């Protein structure tokens, strides 16, 4: 399924805001957007439209978004992003554990909205966006994130980079371990940006990841041995001292 074929149900009582968000979504490429102005309408529309995602305002004229979500949760697992106009909603959302997938605090910028919507859709339905990269090129090596294999000096790659690096010339394939794969995937997602040690541990060990910093260092070193030409002088997987790592 294409990301932009996803159906979105937009629930907000403010007509002008509804239309604006509708415009944003349309322009971003989502062509199936339904709108509702209150809980009743939303409940009526829900079975017909079968949305892939609901953008839900917290304050609605006939009840709040939280209770509507609770109702919906009984019949569906559809991802929900809250649009809230209060700072306090943030804490309520975190506290209630209602199973909302994300929340956006008003006012918001169009990019922010689209970014969150696509992020949730990608996560939930594992759909791919248009420019989603499966492979990442790191100099003479190519990491295939689909299979988790590092290809050194593929014929196509070789043409571009040549064998100028002489002594570091490597060939063949190396498979990544699950942990190395998780680290690299996280770094690739945020390519060019620093990822903190903590975020990496989160990505690799999920919960209860405290105390894995030293283990992380070991995994990073192994990963470098697989993707760097000179692991002791890394060119791509860089350390940002005291903070984390960065994939350039």
């Amino acid at each position: 399924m294409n990301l932009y074929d996803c159906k979105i149900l937009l629930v907000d009582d403010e007509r002008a805001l509804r239309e604006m968000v509708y415009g944003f979504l349309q322009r971003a490429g989502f062509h199936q957007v339904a709108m509702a102005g209150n809980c009743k309408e939303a409940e009526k529309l829900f079975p017909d439209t079968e949305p892939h995602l609901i953008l839900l305002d917290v304050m609605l004229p006939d009840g709040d978004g939280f209770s509507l979500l609770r109702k919906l949760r009984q019949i569906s697992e559809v991802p929900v992003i809250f649009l809230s106009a209060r700072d306090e909603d943030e804490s309520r959302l975190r506290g209630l554990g209602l199973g909302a997938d994300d929340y956006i605090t008003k006012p918001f910028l169009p990019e922010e909205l689209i970014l969150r919507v696509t992020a949730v859709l990608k996560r939930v339905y594992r759909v791919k966006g248009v420019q989603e990269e499966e492979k990442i090129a790191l100099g003479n090596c190519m990491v295939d994130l689909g299979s988790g294999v590092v290809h050194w000096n593929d014929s196509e790659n070789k043409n571009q980079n040549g064998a100028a690096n002489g002594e570091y010339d490597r060939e063949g394939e190396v498979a990544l371990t699950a942990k190395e794969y998780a680290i690299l995937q996280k770094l690739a997602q945020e390519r060019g940006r620093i990822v903190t040690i903590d975020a990496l541990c989160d990505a690799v060990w999920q919960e209860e990841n405290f105390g894995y910093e030293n283990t992380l260092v070991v995994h990073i070193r192994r990963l470098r041995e697989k993707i760097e030409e000179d692991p002791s002088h890394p060119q791509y997987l860089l350390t940002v001292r005291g903070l984390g790592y960065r994939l350039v």
Partner: protein
Amino acid sequence: MKDFRKEKVNYNYKKILRFFGYGVLTVLGMVFLTGVLNIIFLISAAVAYVNTDSSYIQGGKVMEALTPTESGYELDGEMAEEFERQDQWAMLLDQTGQVIWSIRKPEELEDQYTQSDIARMSKWYLKGYPVQMRVWDDRIMIVGMQREMMWKYNIEFSISWMDFVKRTFWVFFFINFVWIVVLAFIFTRRFTKKRERARIEWIAGISHDIRTPLSMVMGYSDTLEHAEELPEEARQQASVIRHQSVVMKELISDLNLTSQLEYSMQTLRKEETRPAEIVRAVAVSFLNDAMPGMLEIEMEIDESGEQMVVKADRQLLVRAFRNLINNSVKHGGQADTVKIKISLWEEKRKCYIRFQDNGVGYSEEVLRRLQGRKKEGDAENIRGLEIVRKIILAHGGKIGFGNCEEGGGYCVILFPNRLK
């Protein structure tokens, strides 16, 4: 150990003192005033209604006014008039109880009294007449009034009872005093709480109502900014609108947060958090957004700091740390590159976090305001730092600001509730 770790962390109890003192002092003042007013009222009422003249003519004075004669005694004329005027009477008894002199003595009274008579009248009444006795050498002068003129009663208490009263009096006084203070505190607190709640809700309501319209200002100005069919100038203007609406958004959430923290109404969603992790995440988000070479952040977290866990509202801590770094980035423009050094360490089972920059430092005025010594002022805008201070204080922490000798400002934060 670095010497900056010895720096004193400034914080203030003033607010609590002011709050506590205000209500309680008011009520204590009212209690005192009520007491004074009562006494004044009582005295003036007594003066107005009570016949203060009704006291016995003193037996001693009568004795002095008496002069012995051959046939008995003779009273000085003035004193005799006094008896007449006050409608009192007197008699003088000798050793045997025989009346040897009298003036205006009621007729029903005898001329001879036994020892038991004398003993009785010394404590009670003489046939209903209130009397007062004065022993003079071997004689007894008895001054009396008319019936129903005087109330008398004998009081006697055991020494242990008196002792008890003496001791307990102060205890009771103290207990009552404390009780009044506590009551005063509770009542003023409830009263002010109610008012504060109304104000906070009002502000929350306004900030809520502004958000939806602002969403549209922000959304459409952003659309216009990116609309390629518009002339460059119009797009520039749209960009300004968008930027300013972002500023307004920040102002609104600052306003809301400040008002809630001010009255500690923000329910802190405390969870176990690792300050090291939060500091890193915040630092990285700044580094990721900064232009290359504009910002350098040096982290100094030792092993104990790394492992530290505190109970805190993660979202608020992120906010506080963001504000601190933001402030350094905004006002630290002394050098080309803003350099920030963040240290985190444990000392005496407390968590310390220190932010230091290479900027111009804090002005005297700002420092005074950050220490809560000065309430208002508009020389410089320190709203962001005020929020930091409030967030830390709301967590029961302490915070201090200062300037380094080598230039630049620093901020030290202390969390007492270290868990691990």
